[in-house]
């Protein structure tokens, strides 16, 4: 019996592979797995296994919320990150900030993993998409955090913590190379069942935006304007095919992926919905504040943030049709005409699906509306801006007028100036997270003075700080600095 027992003790019994999961080393072996891997990279921009999607965290809380479009009505409540971002009090310990930083690097890691574990020449489309996504992530990291570590292969922690904050020019070179690879290896657009995926027009449009950003503060690389113009000139005809002459039809479900160039994709009911509409105004703990618009059990998450009253008044004065397509100035608090009262509030409802019969939308983080990253208006206004700087305002005029006409405004009386373009950008993209980065791009002094006067007007009673140069970047997350000793925090944080 003893010998039988001893014989049965085979040393191999402790070699057990996991039953439940695919291991990373055994993945990326065929077309299906490569496709699943690229899908996962896109999904980093969605809910990412958390309650908020990338658009909410980044374009809403950390961008629109810090610009001169939205102000905070009340002092304090549970969502402190949102308050602190709004009041220029954000600390390196902020969960929202480290969430953004970590998510972008997760995306980079997944792209690096796919690029590393598949071979050059195979799955070229997926590799091109992966390089686009990696470029996108580095671009946003640079814009928001300044120089960061450049990582292009799977990396272990001990190697990662040794990397310095790379020179921005080096990171931009990688971004440009990635986007150029994507642009030559993808079709212009993808539609039907593949709608929502990156095409070459999107890659070029992002490349143009990268050049426009390099041209502005803080890099101030003047040569980039010409590069931007060239890139935009090459895609402008394709962009025209996606232009919808009716602004109010841009943000509706049935036109999704028809009038844009690249959007984050959402669907409700299966943990892949958008969380943005949940942040449009203050909320009771349960129930719906807008019973006319949302299903009975819907509830909200965000703070009482409202649109700058002066902006609303200016747009009303101009007769700008983009106002009512982007903003509601109030709502009924009940569906019962006998008892309801009108609540007056300027809130961004652009991404709210107003349908109180839609029972799939039950939660604040479960909306079907896509969030646009690049749409034709981006290309028109960037292109126009590059043309004006390059002394070609005459060519730029048509693109500015195209958007003015759509907004119900008269064409410009003269060639567009930079000031005209700045104004159009502000009205065109309300709620889309462009404004803060524009202000930064246009120069430190202008950005700080614009944000300061806004803060003085709205936040003198809510104990906020006035913005300073430090606020043009987010702080490097403290959790990141804790793991390494070779990075300096962004100045004054």
């Amino acid at each position, binding site marked *: 019996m003893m010998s039988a027992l001893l014989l049965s003790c085979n040393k191999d019994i*402790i070699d057990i592979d996991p039953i439940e999961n695919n291991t990373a*080393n055994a993945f990326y072996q065929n077309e299906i797995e490569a496709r699943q891997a690229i899908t996962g*990279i*896109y999904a980093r921009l969605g809910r990412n296994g958390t309650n908020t999607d990338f658009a909410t965290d980044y374009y809403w809380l950390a961008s629109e919320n810090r610009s001169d479009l939205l102000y905070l009505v009340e002092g304090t409540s549970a969502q402190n990150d949102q308050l602190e971002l709004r009041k220029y009090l954000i600390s390196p310990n902020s969960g929202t900030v480290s969430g953004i930083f*970590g998510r972008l690097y997760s995306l980079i*890691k997944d792209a690096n993993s796919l690029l590393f574990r598949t071979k050059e020449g195979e799955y070229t489309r997926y590799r091109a998409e992966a390089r686009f996504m990696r470029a996108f992530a580095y671009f946003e990291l640079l814009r928001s955090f300044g120089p960061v570590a450049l990582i292009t292969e799977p990396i272990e922690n001990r190697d990662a913590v040794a990397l310095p904050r790379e020179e921005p020019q080096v990171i931009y070179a990688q971004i440009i190379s990635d986007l150029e690879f994507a642009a030559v290896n993808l079709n212009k657009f993808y539609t039907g*069942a593949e709608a929502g995926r990156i095409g070459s027009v999107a890659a070029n449009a992002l490349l143009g935006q990268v050049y426009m950003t390099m041209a502005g503060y803080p890099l101030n690389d003047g040569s980039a304007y010409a590069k931007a113009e060239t890139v935009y000139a090459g895609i402008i005809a394709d962009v025209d095919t996606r232009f919808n002459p009716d602004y109010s039809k841009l943000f509706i479900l049935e036109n999704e992926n028809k009038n844009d160039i690249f959007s984050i994709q*959402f669907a409700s009911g299966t943990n892949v919905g958008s969380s943005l509409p949940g942040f449009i105004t203050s909320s009771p703990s349960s129930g719906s504040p807008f019973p006319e618009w949302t299903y*009975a059990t819907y509830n909200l998450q965000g703070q009482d943030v409202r649109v700058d009253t002066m902006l609303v008044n200016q747009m009303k004065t101009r007769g700008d049709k983009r106002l009512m397509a982007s903003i509601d100035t109030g709502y009924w608090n009940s569906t019962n005409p006998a008892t309801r009262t009108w609540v007056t509030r300027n809130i961004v409802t652009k991404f709210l699906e107003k349908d109180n019969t839609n029972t799939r939308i039950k939660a604040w983080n479960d909306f079907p509306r896509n969030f646009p990253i690049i749409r034709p208006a981006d290309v028109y206004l960037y292109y126009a801006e590059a043309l004006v700087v390059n002394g070609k305002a005459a060519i730029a005029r048509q693109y500015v007028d195209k958007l003015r006409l759509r907004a119900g405004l008269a064409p410009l009386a003269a060639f567009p100036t930079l000031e005209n373009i700045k104004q159009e950008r502000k009205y065109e993209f309300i709620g889309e997270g462009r404004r803060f980065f524009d202000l930064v791009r246009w120069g430190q002094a202008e950005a700080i003075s614009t944000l300061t006067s806004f803060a003085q007007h709205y936040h003198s009673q809510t104990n906020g700080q006035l913005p300073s140069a430090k606020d043009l970047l987010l702080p490097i997350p403290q959790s990141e600095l804790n793991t390494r000793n070779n990075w300096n925090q962004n100045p004054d944080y």
Partner: protein
Amino acid sequence: MTIPAMCPLYGYSHNERYGAEHSGRGSEWFKPHSDVLTRAIVVTGTVRDENGETLPGVSIKIKGAAGGASTDVSGRFSISVPDANSTLIFTYVGYTALEVPVGGRTSLNVVLKESSTALTEVVVIGYGTQSKGNVTGSIAKITSENIEERPIARVEQALQGQMAGVAVRTTSGAPGSDISIRVRGASSISGDATPLYVVDGVPLDNLSGINPADIESIDVLKDAASAAIYGSRGSNGVVLVTTKRGKKGTPVISATAYTAVSNIERKVDVLDSDQWIAFNQKWLDRQWQVNNPTQDPNASQEQRIAYAQSLAPAGTVYGTRQSLLPIRATYGIYDPYWGTDALEPIDWQDELFRTAPSRDIQVNASGATDAVSYAISAGVFQQEGVVHASSFDRYSLRANLDARINKFIRVGLMLAPSLGLREGANVDGKDNAVSRSLSFPGWTLAGSGRMAGADPYKFYGEWGSGANNVSPYVQAVYNERLNRDVRMNSSFNATIDIAKGLNVNALVGWNYRGNRERSYSPTWIQGTWDTSVPGERSSSRYTTLQGHSLLTQATLNYDRSFGDHNFNGLLGISQETYKEENTDQGLTGFPNDKTWVFNRDRATTTNFNTIGAAENALLSYFSRVQYNYKNKYLFSASLRSDGSSKFGERNRWGLFPALSAGWRIDQEDFMSRTDWLSTTKLSASWGQTGNDRIGNSTFVSNMAALNYVFGDNQAISNGYVVGNISNSLLRWEKTDSYNVGLDLGFLRDRFTLSAAYYYKKTSDLLLSAPVSLTTGFSSMMDNIGNVENKGFELELRTFNTVGTFKWNSGLNVTINRNKITKLGSGDADIRIGQGGTIIQRVGHPINSYYLLDAVGVLREADFDRDAGGTLVPKVPVWSGQRPGDTKYRDINGDGRINASDYTVAGNYQPDFEWGFTNNFTYKNFDLSILLQGRVGGDLLSIGSRGWNRPTNDPKWLYMEQWLTKAYWSEEEPGNGKVPAFFSAVTSEYDTNWMYDAGYLRIKNINIGYNLPLKAKFISRARVYVSCDNVYMWDNYYPGFSPEGASQDNASSDWGAYPQARTLSLGLTATF
């Protein structure tokens, strides 16, 4: 297994009370005497020890008859015996009991021999037993006596307050819930810090299926030298459970039964119904004054409404309760229902909790012949919980059979099936019934009572906590949950004697666990039943788990003495495999509310539908040598090698050595004259152990699903991302442990004292530690970080009085200091839990609390006002704070309060813990009292943020202090600790929710009476009354128990199921 003899403490009473059961002489004791006609005589004499010293206080009894005496100060006694053939029994602590037939004499000189109980008493060690006197490690033991005569529901309860260095905590009072055991502090952060359980030589994941009545003894291996024989699983100590075996002599049948009733230990001091209205009115009055400074501050309700009406938009009439609701806070409007019959008061704690009965019946038969011994038992335990609808039933059987096949071969079979049934919704934690019973105001709409919120009643509406809420009673009772746990523990072993002192033992153990749980929540108890059709919001869930663990093991044992040299050797090999499969199905949205049984096609939403599987394996080689010279100089060394599938290929195998030595000074010749000092032993040990409690295959990089939407029709596509970093170096946690022990006995062990100092350093902590976010991950499972535990243990046992009235005491004190000494990259903090309030930081204990330090309440004097009347703080404040808000300590001294001022504010670890047992016997009565407590340590009542936090709207219920002790104004500043209920900054986590977790508790009082029986078929019967959790003194305010740390790594409280005060009446009988 050798029968554990009795330790000195219990030995004394043992001979008196339990001799019949254990000594095997029971049949003689009650042998009827035939020559009853002889007359009584008086016997006198003196009792001396071997050195001729007289012994005072020696107890003398007459065998088989009532009556007794004891010796006086000069060792003399006088006793009247029924006849000249009587036999006297002399017993004395530390001496062997002596029976002396009177034989017609009237004068007796008796010499008692010092007993060598310390040598004969046996403790269970890994893969064997050892005489207690020769133990060189640190082992604590309790025997069946501590368990049998007191009603306990679970094995672990028997250990609470009994052993130094073994902290037992009842985190949840829910029937059948697990009880936390920590041996010498927590030495793991991520890994489980629960000790390894080994029942009759077979490791077991959980003791819930074990019937306490089946237990002969529990031995806890505390130091690494004892536990290292369990290698990679010994770091957190090892609990060895030995079940009863049959003993030679007359077969014994014993039956025990008790019945008990339980109530909650205490209620929490929230506002009662009337106080809640007073609180609301006070707040609303203030709202009126603050929002309408131009108006009469004391305006009546009519005046307030009239004023509001004067400012109302055209067409708005404030004529109804509904129309007043939106202006309630602005104009300080009272609910028109207050003071009317439309509302009824209710006490939610009274409604949720009940007086709950429980009962337990045990039958046990055992016996042995030369060839066969058997112990078979059956137990039925039925417990209802103090929360309505909760219960736990355990049905268990056990058969332990041992047979001697021939001169060389012995075999044994153990079978122990059990069935555990748990019923009742999960009431612990966020938004569940227990926390709801503290956060709902004590009013319901008339007629609804405790069914408020369930069809056809609505909950007290927007003037209170909201119309869509459901009463905690309904939550607890009508959310059905049934958990069935079938366990089969079995083992077979065979021992073959090969040569003198040499034998080989083979063991095969198989543990099966089949667990099924179903839960069902119908639509009619959802708060939104009125906007739903039946079934729409119903959900049903069914999970299963099947686990098999198989152990095969062979050991070679050698035990021999050569003159004064005593050897014991062990060589072994074992292999353990574990396999499990689980399923989880859950659906929502049914056609109706009629049944929990569902068909996927009929439901609208699938919430869960998974099948899972896991397996792991452990292969081990182990050896041990024990040697002593004349039982004086003791040495022991062991070595184990473990290979585990849970770790990376490069670190799969590990070595776990241990060394220990002891010196029994009392055995030295020079000690033989030292009368006052008896047992004297010094011991020291060192050993290395491990902890392997992490998931399977965490060392490889796995792909995790992350889906995305593509296409015009918004179709979901399967996506995969790299889910975790691989770590091929992943290995077990390693603990180096040092132990120094001293055992002393005074006055022939009438007082014994055991003291131990230990130092445990755990390195290579299995930690999900932060890594650079640039890796794409926030954390990685890695072996980084060190934790140390050092502590001091003291056990004192005394026989205070002997003779007819006997009193003995045991005191144990445990001091443990836990500290993290190293963490991952750059010692970065690790924060977990609600709001990141639990922190792991170097230099502080595991699971410390990370909070703002509240130092008082901000007053008007802390501010200036500028020309515009705006407050300008003179002291550091959180942005936006006003008088009445919590004043925080400016930790970093930058003149303002923000997230950088969070600090390590406390932790749950006590300064020390103690237990104090007292046993009294007088004639047929016995009484035992167990006191137990902890001093120091804090508990974060994280859940009480619901009912113990300023929210500036008193719609929900709050602790009484918010009415009576809070800041309301400069004129009514409260006690200086409780901020204003209308505070501005209310969402930070601060020390206002951290309370002293020290307590002193009368844990148990047990009074028994041995019935003086005439019947011949029954040898002994005892009735008793016992009360558990008799009374507690503590400072924990916003929750039920300072032991209720159940949330966030078991370090904070969120409405844990309260503990019960239980009163039981029991009977034990032996036939």
